[in-house]
């Protein structure tokens, strides 16, 4: 019995069905998250829209929607492909305080979740650029909060 050696037969293909309608020219060849672009593909990717998050830089490979909402495929500087749901997470901030700070962003969001017991607010934006802009601004406006623009580079598996 080698459970962690066991080949996990769950296909992630369905995740990428939702990417078929993606708008970027790279959409038809977007590799799965966690894979690494070749050097030449990376050069192409670096001509696409750039997202700056703090000291890190990401490039947008494609934008679109999945069954659960907006979806942006990105690549980081190491060439690793990741996925963003255009979410901004505001943590370590009481919900009532957060509500006051995010009011001006709500028109650009598709949904907002308030998780009171964890002091977390999750904003989902239509566009990754709006999410990145909000992150930069909210970090200044809410210095005690922890504000993140999550990108998923790997799917967890049994270990």
């Amino acid at each position, binding site marked *: *019995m080698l*459970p962690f050696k066991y080949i996990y037969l769950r296909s992630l293909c369905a*995740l990428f069905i939702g990417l078929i309608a993606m708008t970027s020219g790279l959409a038809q060849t977007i590799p799965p998250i966690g894979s690494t672009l070749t050097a030449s593909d990376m050069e192409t990717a670096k001509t696409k829209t750039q997202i700056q998050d703090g*000291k890190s830089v990401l490039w947008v490979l494609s934008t679109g929607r999945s069954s659960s909402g907006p979806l942006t495929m990105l690549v980081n500087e*190491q060439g690793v492909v990741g996925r963003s749901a255009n979410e901004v997470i505001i943590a370590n901030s009481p919900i009532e305080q957060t509500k006051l700070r995010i009011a001006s962003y709500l028109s650009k969001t598709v949904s907002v979740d308030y998780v009171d017991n964890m*002091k977390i607010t999750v904003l989902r934006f239509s566009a990754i650029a709006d999410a990145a802009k909000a992150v930069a601004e909210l970090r200044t406006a809410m210095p005690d909060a922890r504000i993140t623009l999550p990108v998923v580079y790997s799917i967890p*598996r049994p*270990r």
Partner: protein
Amino acid sequence: MKKTVLFSLIILALITQLTSCSGGSDSTTISCTETGPYACQTGATEPLYTYQWALNAAQSYFAGYPPVADGTTDLNVEAVHAQGIKGQGVNVMVLDDGLEINHIDLKANINPAMTWNFQTNTSDSTPSGLNEAHGTNVAGMIAAAQNGIGVMGIAPRVTLGGAKFIGLTNGAIANVVEAYGGALWSKNTDVFNASYSKSYIVPIDYSPTSSVEIAAVQSFPNLRNGKGAVMVKSAANDYVDIEVKENGSFIYAATCPQFEYRGASYSLVSCANPSSDTVRLELPMIVTAAANAKGYKSSYSSAGSVVWITGLGGELGSLGNYGEAGSAEKNRGPQIYSTDLMGCDRGYSKYGESPDDAAQFLIGGSPINQEKNSNCDFSQMNGTSSSAPTVTGVVALMLSANPNLGWRDIRDILRRTARQMNPDYGNQNYRNHQVNLTLNPTLSDSTSTVLTDGATAARIDYGWQTNGAGNKYSNWYGFGLADAKAAVNMAKAYTVYKPTQLIVPIFDAGIKDSQVKYGEVKELGKFSVTSEKAMDMIQLGFQASKKATDEANNVCMGSVGIFLKSPQGSVSVLSTPYNVFYDKTSHAKDTRNGGKIGPDSIYVLGSYAFYGENPKGDWTVYAVSGTPLPTSECAANPRLTMDYRIYNAE
């Protein structure tokens, strides 16, 4: 004579009854207030208990097989059970590939209000896949009931929740915030078990502060009405290699170099560093390594300086009737017995298993299976996936004994009561030899631990070390093997609670623009700390320095080991050279490039090796660098910039 014998038997019976309520070998009498048919009894009431070596090694079936078990390595739980402390009042959440809610040995402990299935969006966490037995096995190690059936969990009266959280067949990514305490079904969790992780064959950017998982874990201190929850997480099974998968299917094994010495090869580095999954850098995350029944690191258990504790996971291959065949030296031995998906048509115990891969107990229809496991409701499982729930079980016992413990107290007690194991491992199998940094990959004859600037050889494993605060730490075992009896005793006596607020410090500037020299030990520089507060974790964040021109400055972190020396002289290996980023196979899909990092991403490492030390003074950072492979995409003479932050021990 007969009267004497009768009298002796009565006295013996009385003593037996007394010890059953007094913590076994304890010299002091400890009362037991548990009620019910199994009150104050150990797991000896369960028919498969003899195979549960992690709960009682000495009386285990495997104690009769010295090549695979030493008969002493266990979690020391029986004295706790005999006190009637069995997890009562504690909520444990198993986030995994599902949890069979009607399992005969689990359902008594499952709270239906604490289960969820992200695949079906219902509260039935039972997985649909025939092989999705991982979570049900994990759950049994923690919470299998004491009922005269099958096995017994380490906390057999805990309240159990669980979710179908990973391996979703529709490819969706589960809602992490919901799972980590943000939903009605998860919000009352005291301890999360996370026997899963992400693996990477290239360095992953720590930012864009980049993970919803990190944000959720940093919010754990808000749970339990402000006392804070912890998550016990597996360190991963990537010591030898990382299995690379695509769309769920195995593609190739990303290997690491073996080190040649006198005609033989030795595995000296942990292929993957647990900190590669950056959520393991978070303090509420109790990163758990695995040990086998011989009291030695399991062959697969990933090692690194973010390991906090060791649990028991058994060995890679478990053969024979129950796992007694072979020897631990050959990576064989018993695993952790637990609950499995019910029925012989699914789970890990089922029809069609081969004796080349599985013990007879797991092979549906075999004579052993028919006798002991005829419906295939039970199994055994290895991995840090198993060691993590053994520690989760211990934490549940601690919280049962003292529900007032905060998340820092839990970590503190586990650390202080852990047992050092395998104390001489750093001198075994040539681990104490220096590695040649120019002659890839070979060992030298020298065993010196001195780090000399410009040297072309260095030790890359220091084994167990005692730091400046007197704490023993090892990259293999963290602070050591969990000890339930000692931990519960300390929990009961605990009265001065640590603050629960988690202050995440910002990174301070450390070293700017320091040149790495491949094939050498290079002192990158020093940074000075003024705080005198006892420290918890230190983290270092690296970036390739920006250059004035467009000249490439990629630093290949597969070749660069990062060693850190504290003002008190302790040394921690935060990463080794020749790790998984270094190597490259001939597989067409192996796109490894030497583990290069550039100026627009942050590569973060952490260490608990300095726990408790006064950090004031100068810290020295070394790059211990091998020579990159010709296929690597490394700039010549690259430069690194480094920031640091220190969490206080509180």
